[in-house]
């Protein structure tokens, strides 16, 4: 019946290797300054003398401030590092999320061929939000910090928030501030929580980012009033673990 939707004829499809989109050594680019950045990019493929490195970092910074970079989440620009950092991009490569998860499952079973490939695979977790009729999935590996994650979550659920959730210049760092979290809990703002590997619900932001990515099974953005009970438990757990 769906003859218009799929190719029925001879077809050859070759898909992603186990490593997904890893191994990119490029700076962030999405601006009209094409010529300059292009040269920089090509140079980055080879040796990276410090001068070029700084220029790349500078270019990356400039591009970050331009208005149309939103699809590119971030590019940390640390001139000290020997190679340019990876830039993670929303929806690239264009592979549906369920396939990314499949590949990471394969890798978990020990079939991967290169050790570092598993670290670039997706860490897809479901995100639900109080009052939103739809679940969403977010790939934790595409973010490098809580701040980035919060920005992405806000974009994802922008139609449902009242605008209190981090939009008035409340940065991720402020959000993580213990006092601020407690203040938020008393209000009607939304609070991100997550279910960890033990099945406990914790407040997002308590543990170092990498630890969070490794242990987070799913996210839930709760109304502040409902999340009140979590804070003491989170503290307890932290104490027990540390």
């Amino acid at each position, binding site marked *: *019946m*769906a003859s*218009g*939707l799929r*190719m*029925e*004829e*001879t*077809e*050859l*499809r*070759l*898909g*992603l*290797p*186990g490593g997904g989109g890893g*191994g*990119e050594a*490029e700076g962030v*680019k*999405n*601006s*009209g300054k*094409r010529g300059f950045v*292009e040269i920089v990019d*090509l140079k980055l493929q080879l040796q990276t003398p410090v001068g070029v490195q700084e220029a790349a970092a500078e270019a990356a910074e400039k591009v970050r401030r331009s*208005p*149309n*970079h*939103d*699809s*590119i989440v971030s590019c940390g620009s640390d001139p000290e590092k020997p190679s340019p950092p990876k830039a993670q*991009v*929303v*929806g*690239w*490569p*264009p*592979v*549906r*999320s*369920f*396939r990314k998860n*499949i590949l990471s*499952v*394969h890798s978990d*079973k020990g079939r991967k061929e290169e050790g570092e490939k598993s670290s670039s695979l997706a860490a897809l977790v479901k995100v639900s939000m109080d009052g939103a*009729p*739809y*679940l*969403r999935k977010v790939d934790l590996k595409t973010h490098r910090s809580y701040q980035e994650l919060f*920005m992405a979550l*806000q*974009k*994802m*659920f*922008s*139609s*449902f928030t009242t605008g209190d959730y981090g*939009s008035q210049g409340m940065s991720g760092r402020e959000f993580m501030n213990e006092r601020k979290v407690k203040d938020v809990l008393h209000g009607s703002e939304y609070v991100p929580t997550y279910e960890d590997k033990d099945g406990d619900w914790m407040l997002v932001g308590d543990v170092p980012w990498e630890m969070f990515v490794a242990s987070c099974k799913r996210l839930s953005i709760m109304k502040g009033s409902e999340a009140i009970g979590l804070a003491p438990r989170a503290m307890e757990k932290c104490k027990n673990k540390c």
Partner: protein
Amino acid sequence: MTEDCDGEEQDEETRRWSPGQGSSSSSRGGGSGASASSPLKTRCVRGRVDQPPPFSGLVLENVLENVLQFLACRRDRNAASLVCRSWYRAEARTRLELFIGNCYAVSPARALGRFRCARALVLKGRPRFADFNLVPVGWGARFSPWVASMAVAYPWLERVCLKRMTVTDADLALLARSFSSFRDLTLICCDGFGTPGLAAVAELCRNLRVLDLIENDVEDEDEEVVDWISRFPETATCLESLSFECVNCPVNFAALEALVARSPSLRRLRVNQHVSVGQLRCLMVRAPQLTHLGTGSFETVPAADGAAELDVAELESAFVASKSLVCLSGFRMVAPEYLPAIYPVCAGLVSLNLSYATTTAEQLKPVILQCHNLRTFWVLDTVGDEGLRAVAKTCKHLQGCQRLRSILYFCQRMTNAAVVTMSKNCQDLVVFRLCIMGRHRPDHITGEPMDEGFGAIVMNCKKLTRLAVSGLLTDKVFEYIAKYGKLVRTLSVAFAGNSDLSLRYVLEGCHKLQKLEIRDSPFGDAGLLSGIHHYYNMRFLWMNSCKLSLRGCKEVAQRLPRLVVEVFGDQNKDLDSDAVEKLYLYRSLVGPRDDVPSFVKIL
């Protein structure tokens, strides 16, 4: 506006009354002769009073309908409907399958009002880039208004196929309750529903023949999982196809096995990865008549009761007994020791999908060397060049790629020479989608942009209708596409081009262009405006992270009143900023939709 239903003008003249109209005259290959209530009765119930035409005109229209019922292709039907009013009406009465490529191009009321006798609906919603998280949650494309309207207008509805729509459990329940002849449900890349909805369909659609769930995002909150497989009627079923690979929760295997055992018409079965290879064997034994099999995990799960693992020979004998298998897929986990079990069916296979299996060349070769009749092949590049050579050597219908019609290829790097070779060897290509995953990657040997490779594709593959480009690309490649890609209908662009020239070339040169999706390319208002003459002929244009501004988008909206121009994007952007992050524009007969979320602005 002549391509699809969604682009055609609605004739507002009074509806015709025709006594010859009824189910008897509209039966064709797919429809059943003994269908539910006739359309004529329904119209009377709704109280429409129409002017009967002069007798001679009536006879002519009846004759015309009897002829038009043989016209299946929707493009031919669109053309026929434009001949004159009489043909328009006759065609409207005899169209059995309603294809709507963009659910917002037309309203349920208009579509159902024109085509009163349709038995099947194919409906597409979100733009394709939604698959890659580029369309925010809650954007739209809900099935609810459609199913609600059809429940009233199409009580005889038999088939529904939805792609990228949001379908709720309530929608599925309403569908299951409302259509007593309902037989085929296909959901592709949809979301919003879970096992409760599936349970309703299983339980209430007594004539269900097809339930195909393909790549949907199925809700599986632990607390709400329902044993939907158990809800099928306990008597023999008419099931012909059951696909649930995308349902992530385990199904009740005993119930599944019993269902398969009492479904003598079952030809296509695709199970999810929770079905072990041992369970698969049980199912195959129950249904040796299968033509299409999705194998699930294809590995053993350690049994809780310590039962012995499945013997490969036992599995192989199940495949030996499945003499009709032509299409094999699944292999979600594939334990390599079980792969040889499929040898007995390889010679008969027309389609093999290993795209979830990290098969090596060594594992693939003995399989592929027997697949002489393969027409469709999916594989991961874990098979390497050696694996592909084995494919090319054996599969004559793919061989030397001469007869290849469609290529979808992901790679880290590529050369122009390789793409040029592909273009010369596969001149019959209809679809060419190459994704060089490194953004802006040039030819890794010459360092040049990939313009020449893609240029060769459009030059040599004269039947090409769908193209996706990638790698480092300048305006030049779009000049080639505009000059040679005269049949291209769908074009996907990412991280490409230097300037507005690229967009101008394409919009001015590709006369058949229907769907254009662009991301992260430096195209601005000038490029956008160059398509004004063509947007009414297109299904949609999508652009994100380009260089568009509100000014340019507004101008398009003003100059083309039948176009819906949606802009949306980042809430955090400066209030001064005129920049548009995401643009989605499409022709529509019904103007701005009424279910716009707060983050979307319609200009």
